[in-house]
């Protein structure tokens, strides 16, 4: 029970809510890394995913490489990357981007594949260009799944961004975990974890709302009697 009490004390300690090592600052850093990672990963994964989904080409390769990327051990990649780019935030962002690509890629191509072939055929037959089909038919209809990809990518990055603190330098919420571990300060470790979990839950909730909005006022496929 003492760890729990200590954690509550730690979270309640006003000293932990200000300054460079305070929760607001660490939280902002953490969000910063997450946003940067997801933006970079999306810039890579979304165009590729849309291309694969639209053309159906290289689908096998996309499936295999998303699987392979998922199997990479995060800490191993981080250590390896830091050998090349030195300490600081770069190797961490690189590692997190690799982690965020698979769900984004899968969301994009699976989303496009889920669109009814007949709808796409009809769009083509009435004279839409391939670009118009992608932009006005496939992406809007695939949007819930594409956002789903962002959702899982963001959550994985939020959880895993704690490893950024593994390397000296700036650190986000992971600082509490890594530094706490070094001095066996369990209250700090658990307190930091609680903040990470709370952040993950809040972000997840936001994505749920976003997915609802993406569906818009469009009804489900069940026809009603009119």
């Amino acid at each position: 029970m003492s760890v729990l009490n200590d954690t509550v004390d730690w979270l309640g300690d006003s000293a932990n809510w200000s300054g460079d090592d305070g929760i607001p600052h660490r939280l902002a850093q953490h969000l910063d890394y997450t946003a940067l990672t997801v933006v970079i990963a999306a810039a890579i994964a979304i165009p590729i995913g849309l291309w694969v989904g639209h053309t159906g080409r290289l689908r096998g390769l996309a499936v295999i490489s998303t699987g392979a990327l998922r199997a990479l051990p995060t800490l191993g990649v981080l250590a390896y990357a830091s050998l090349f780019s030195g300490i600081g935030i770069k190797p961490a962002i690189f590692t997190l981007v690799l982690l965020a690509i698979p769900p984004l890629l899968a969301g994009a191509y699976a989303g496009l594949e889920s669109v009814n072939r007949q709808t796409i055929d009809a769009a083509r037959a009435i004279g839409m260009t391939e670009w118009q089909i992608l932009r006005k038919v496939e992406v809007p209809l695939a949007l819930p799944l594409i956002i789903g990809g962002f959702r899982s990518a963001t959550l994985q990055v939020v959880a895993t961004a704690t490893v950024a603190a593994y390397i000296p330098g700036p650190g986000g919420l992971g600082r509490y975990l890594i530094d706490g571990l070094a001095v066996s300060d369990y209250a700090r470790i658990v307190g930091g974890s609680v903040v990470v979990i709370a952040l993950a839950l809040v972000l997840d909730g936001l994505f749920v709302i976003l997915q609802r909005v993406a569906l818009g006022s469009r009804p489900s496929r069940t026809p009603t009697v009119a």
Partner: protein
Amino acid sequence: MIEYRSIGKTFADGTEAVGDFSLQLPSRTTTVFVGSSGCGKTTLLRMVNRMVDPSHGQVLIDDVDVATRNKVELRRSIGYVMQEAGLLPHRKVIDNVALMMRLKGASKKEARDRAHEVLETVGLDSSLANRYPAQLSGGQQQRVGVARGLVTDPNILLMDEPFGAVDPIVRDELQQELLRLQRELDKTIVFVTHDIDEAFLLGDQVVILKKGGEIAQVGSPADILAKPANDFVSSFIGLDKGRRTLHVEERNGTRIVVDESGKATGVLAE
């Protein structure tokens, strides 16, 4: 006029959909391709707007080879109505119809006004304009599909089994509606169906197809009924089963038209 010149299509997987097909489709008439599945009728239809490019031969519209035309431009100049309507599920009815006008560069207002007009032409209540396709019945969706095909006032209308997925009563209604529209609008219609009754009802020229796009017979419904070219045609149109060989019988003082098996099919108009 649409003309097929010795056209053939073999798909990448080796299936020969059409062997060697030549035919002229006169302007401002309805030509119906009718045949069982695998006869190449849909392939023939889709060659007109280059949804399928032939392996050999040419398709000409008013003496211009469609292969020389830009696919997208060509498709925008031709109305296309398909089974299950093929509407965009995330767009309202009005936007589905107006989309064609927008693709052709019309302003938003112009497109919507024209869409409302044509929805009315196909007999859809304007209260349905702001619904989504999934909120309409099958018959209503199909009317929207027809409206979309007509909205840009194209000379040619391609119809790929448009009434195949609706129930018989609604189909009958839609067929009558199409006949009425055709009387008013005078389009060149290419219609694909596997239903010979539908073909005879709608077609000025009916093309009965065998496997591989081989023409079993071409002619007006009356010509085909009067002089079926061969046993395949007789059997396909139901002459061999006596369904179309009718005679008059008097029953309880009324003159009833019955088929060969004695089944009543109608009354004789005096």
